[in-house]
């Protein structure tokens, strides 16, 4: 009862009061954590250092940025076009291996250096510049999006979910067992590919342990992904995606080619997975097949759904929240509770219970997500800034 009421009567203009405010918030948060960790914390007292390391460790913050990239990529498929993809982890894996292949000494019989930054003594292998790897990672996953999506997007949505589920299993399994493909070592199997090159940005080398810089770098990726998502959403293609999500039949009868449009969302959404995969590989300095399991697909999907399907900033909030809970939140809150009450509950082991509970509660009471999709057109029209203000005010009142 509560669910239907919220879903149907929720005012359209809720919560989001313009992209600009959110963008400023995002940039401020990134700048805060960078400056904090780069300049302030090293001089801080031990308790302060401990507090931030426990609750907001930079490693986790950087990983959150990767999750944002992933969730936004999936958001293009699930949130915009309304296609259920249960195997998104495949694209993460593919992107990761592109980084593994193209910027490490792994293919030791080759020696190919294209503006790369090979470590001294490891000049063999393939060493491409990080920008090129990001682009190639995106292109490679887009191609795989095409290969997977091409035949399956003609299926009805439930079947699409099943096929993507299959690919989400097949591709990581291939990576896990790819140490001997007809005598060639393609993926190095369970050991994965380690020792990735350090990133060299215009002569500035980001060392393996330069966490603040790495954080800044993946934040830039997330920022770019946010920007792309918003721009795409507000264009011709974004409208067609949403129209398909809203009513497939009506969309096709308004001249929107269904297959092509779904296809583009799938391929472009895959790029997010690819870029996230490259970013993650650089972050951890390698790519390891056993990380890419089905649960990841579900977590990313949960981020999109909880954040508010289709709304970029909602998904960012959803990804941040869930990723934080996953990596440190649950452990820290658990410790806090155990220390305060003298209990011995193993909180992280209840992760999925909590997850399931959260999902059920969301579906019952807030189906549209933390921050439901609600965009304000005026933000687009620079000549109507005045109207934007008006709507923002309305919005503040509307959002509880």
């Amino acid at each position, binding site marked *: 009862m509560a669910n239907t009421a919220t879903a149907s009567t929720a005012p359209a203009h809720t919560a989001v009061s313009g992209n600009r405010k959110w963008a400023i918030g995002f940039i401020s948060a990134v700048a805060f954590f960078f400056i904090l960790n780069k300049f302030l914390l090293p001089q801080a007292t031990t308790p302060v250092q401990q507090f931030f390391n426990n609750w907001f460790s930079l490693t986790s913050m950087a990983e959150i940025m990767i999750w944002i990239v992933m969730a936004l990529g999936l958001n293009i498929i699930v949130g915009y076009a309304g296609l259920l993809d249960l195997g998104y982890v495949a694209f993460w894996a593919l992107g990761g291996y592109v980084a593994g292949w193209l910027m490490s000494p792994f293919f030791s019989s080759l020696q190919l250096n294209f503006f790369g930054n090979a470590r001294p003594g490891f000049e063999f292998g393939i060493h491409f510049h990080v920008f090129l790897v990001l682009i190639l990672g995106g292109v490679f996953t887009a191609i795989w999006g095409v290969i997977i999506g091409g035949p399956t997007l003609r299926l009805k949505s439930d079947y699409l979910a099943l096929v993507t589920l299959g690919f989400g299993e097949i591709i990581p399994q291939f990576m896990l067992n790819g140490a001997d493909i007809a005598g060639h070592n393609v993926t190095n199997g369970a050991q994965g590919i380690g020792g990735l090159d350090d990133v060299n940005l215009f002569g500035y080398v980001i060392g393996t342990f330069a966490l603040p810089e790495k954080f800044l770098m993946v934040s830039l990726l997330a920022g770019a992904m946010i920007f792309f998502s918003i721009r795409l959403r507000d264009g011709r*293609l974004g409208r067609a995606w949403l129209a398909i999500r*809203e009513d497939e039949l009506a969309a*096709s009868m308004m001249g929107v080619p269904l297959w092509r449009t779904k296809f583009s969302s799938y391929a472009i959404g895959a790029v997010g997975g690819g870029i996230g995969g490259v970013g993650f590989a650089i972050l951890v300095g390698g790519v390891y097949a056993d990380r890419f399991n089905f649960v990841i697909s579900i977590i990313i999907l949960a981020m999109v759904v909880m954040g508010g399907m289709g709304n970029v900033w909602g998904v960012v909030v959803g990804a941040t929240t869930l990723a934080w809970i996953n990596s440190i939140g649950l452990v820290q809150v658990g410790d806090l509770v155990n220390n305060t009450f003298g209990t011995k509950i193993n909180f992280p082991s209840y992760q999925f219970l909590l997850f399931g509970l959260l999902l059920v509660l969301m579906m019952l009471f807030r189906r549209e997500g933390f921050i439901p999709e609600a965009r304000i057109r005026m933000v687009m029209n620079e000549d109507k800034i005045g109207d934007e203000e008006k709507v923002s005010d309305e919005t503040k009142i509307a959002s509880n």
Partner: protein
Amino acid sequence: MSLDGRAVLDAQDIRVEFGGLVAVDDVSFTIPEGSIVSLIGPNGAGKTTFFNVLTGLYQPTSGAVIFDNVEITGDPVHDIASGGLARTFQNIRLFGLMTAQENVMVAMHSKMNAGVFATIFRTKKQRAEEAEARRFAQELLDYVGIGEVTNEYARNLSYGDQRRLEVARALALRPKVLLLDEPTAGMNPNESAAFVQFVRKLKADKGISILLIEHDMSVVMQVSERITVLDQGQKIAEGSPAEIKSNPRVIEAYLGKSGSEASK
């Protein structure tokens, strides 16, 4: 036949079978250019099925649909639509979580070109295209009389406004033929009368040919230049409103044989 002029839409011997059931039985039908024609018939007569054949949703078992001198039988739905055969839906099918303006702009999809990169980087051409699309959408919304709800979500509009928005969206395809599926369903007599005026205006202003499926006989009789009557998948009559009114087979189809079962 009472109307001359080139047929902008010509359906020839359309037959649709679902398994053993013949839903549409060799029906031929034309829409002369710049005319308002209606398709009527009791429930289950095959009107909607026929309609779906015209718009490409169903593949006819046999027969051909010629639109603007080109055969479109079997073409993809979206090609037929962007070719200028637009429709509205009996049970309104708007894109609820998109604004009125966006709803209209979706229908311009096929006439626009911006690709992924142009959209992301907002090239000059893309911005010009968007601005023009927005302007045209506003023009259409004004034309159907809901210009003030441009930025409202479609699902928040009143029923009447939603009907109007459907027409505006269909017009964004720059159609040659507009198919209206029971457009006055749920309207009160005043609204229906206003709708009759609107359809006439539409034809006069834009030179669009209009096909109406309608239950409200007063609307049909007022607005149509020609009426085709379907019953049990067959065309049982065709002619001017006056001819149809006095056609015994039509009366029989609607009221039953020799008036034994009087219905509304």
